[in-house]
């Protein structure tokens, strides 16, 4: 019974208990607090930012001051406003890409693990293929080939990041299909597709949720790396871009790269905390306080 989580997804009554248990986990408390902060910053970016992030100015390379909280970069742009707007980019790309990877991975892994046979073999071989290819270079190739719009970046990250989720879901499905309630559903007449969607995936999805939050971090880092290399979408503000730009000014304008870099660290750490907290929540054995 260890493969499935101890938390039951029950409406109302169960939800309250879930929230209570969730808040008991230290990592989740901190992580969710930061996440809320991040979301607020991303959502209200235009209101929070002090200047237009794209506005060029003559006041270049100004250190942090009362007017420019994080100083300006080599083209006179306000660093604080850029970082704030960059939050939007990162969150959107990170979350959407991770969710795409999560959905694809869950479906493919679930099908492979539940139906077995040819599909399972195909998936395993595909998995192995992906595991052999350095994902980052694959992403580079595709972006270089197809262009670097934000949509492309999201798609590429989503389409290459599903492998881990698929493996997780597959192993869940393989053990869940032997459970009595699955045989029971077959005996009652539920079709296999219905069993997959109603029983296997909902019961097996917990590790994937935790994994997906970690994937958000990974996607954000990936995007930052792409932007750093100049392969990101030039029309949007991105932390990687800022760092890339700031690379030339590391001694004269350290606050440029440092600000964006710190933002990335905080964000990645936030999602890591949430992922770890979720793991602890869903797998009580990991809770070391007992």
């Amino acid at each position, binding site marked *: 019974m260890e493969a499935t989580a101890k938390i039951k997804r029950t409406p109302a009554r169960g939800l309250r208990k879930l929230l209570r248990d969730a808040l008991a986990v230290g990592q989740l408390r901190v992580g969710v607090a930061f996440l809320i902060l991040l979301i607020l910053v991303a959502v209200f970016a235009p209101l929070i930012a002090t200047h237009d992030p794209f506005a060029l100015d003559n006041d270049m390379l100004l250190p942090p001051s009362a007017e420019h909280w994080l100083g300006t970069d080599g083209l006179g742009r306000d660093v604080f406003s850029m970082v704030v707007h960059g939050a939007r980019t990162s969150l959107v790309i990170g979350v959407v890409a991770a969710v795409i990877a999560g959905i694809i991975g869950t479906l493919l892994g679930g099908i492979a693990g539940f139906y077995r046979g040819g599909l399972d073999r195909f998936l395993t071989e595909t998995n192995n293929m992906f595991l052999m290819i350095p994902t980052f270079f694959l992403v580079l190739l595709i972006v270089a080939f197809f262009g670097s719009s934000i949509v492309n970046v999201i798609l590429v990250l989503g389409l290459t990041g599903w492998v881990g989720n698929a493996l997780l879901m597959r192993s869940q499905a393989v053990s869940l299909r032997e*459970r009595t309630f699955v*045989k029971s559903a077959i005996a009652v007449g539920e079709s296999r597709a219905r069993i997959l969607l109603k029983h296997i995936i909902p*019961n097996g999805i917990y590790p994937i949720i935790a994994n997906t939050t970690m994937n958000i971090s990974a996607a954000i880092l990936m995007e930052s790396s792409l932007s750093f290399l100049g392969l990101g979408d030039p029309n949007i503000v991105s932390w990687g871009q800022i760092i890339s730009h700031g690379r030339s000014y590391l001694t004269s304008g350290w606050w440029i790269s440092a600000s964006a870099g710190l933002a990335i660290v905080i964000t990645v750490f936030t999602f890591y905390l949430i992922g770890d907290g979720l793991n602890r929540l869903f797998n009580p054995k990991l809770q070391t306080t007992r």
Partner: protein
Amino acid sequence: MTARPDKVLEAEGLVKTYQARGKSAVRAVDGVGFTLRRGEVLGVIGESGCGKSTLGRMLVRLEEPDEGEIRYNGKTYREAYRRDPLAFRRLVQIVFQNPFDTFDPRYSIEQILTGVLKLHRIGRNHDERLALVAERLEQAGLAPADQYLTRYPHELSGGQLQRISILRAMLLNPQFLVADEPTSMLDASIQADIMNMLAEQCRERNTAMVFISHDIAAVRYIADKIAVMYLGRIVEYGEADEVLHHPRHPYTRALIAGSLKLGRQADAKPLKLEGEPLSAGAAAGCAFYPRCFRRRDDCRERRPEPVDLGGRRVSCFYPLEDEASDPPGTAPRAAATRESPSGTA
């Protein structure tokens, strides 16, 4: 209503083989056949590893037989139900051994039970289905129904869950029910109620049942006929009380003698069986040969086919005499002598 055929189920020559990695193939079910009539209860007894659970799963098509044929109301699955698998599920149902795992923990009892009705398009809307489900629950003693409908499986006891499992199976009014060790995971004080409920539900709807168990007394309580399985084969088959009180197959005899139940005299000793059981399907001759206290050389060479002895089917070359009057353990031919430890495996 058109008259339904009398023979609900006919199984013939069923074989199921499992291939364990690195080991040889194991014939979990090795040529099983029997007939079940409407409303009849067949008890299948045997120890663990005899293939009875595999047989049960084959009868409801949770597993496909490798060889052999099963006819439901005269027709095989392929002939009659391939195009309407849901109709098959309304015909044949199963109650599992583990009530704690029979239901998906994420759904409430209400969702689970009305979901079955909805799937089979019984009832015009949710309210009708809910009413039907509530009625069945209360009839079965789970009242008030609300208490159970709103609960989730982990909030109920094993006995309650098993009752609900039986109810769910009977919601579809099946003609045939397989009960796979339905009481082995329940406490003694609950087992009786579950058996009574099964018997009652089947009687009311004239549902035939195959009751699988390793508990001979439970099977005697509930079954009309008994099939004794050993290593994948049915070694004896007949009327329940007849088989239990006048066993003709040596294994049946040993099984009954070994089943220590209250009411037996303290000095009636269980039959000593020397030797260890073979793995299923490995024997060329009789599967029981290594442990049989009546064995002769030719038992090892040919496999005994079922022989009809006046309504009783026994797979043995040298079946026991009809010891109607001799209490077990004292009949000279069948008395076991305590041999020196051998270990002939």
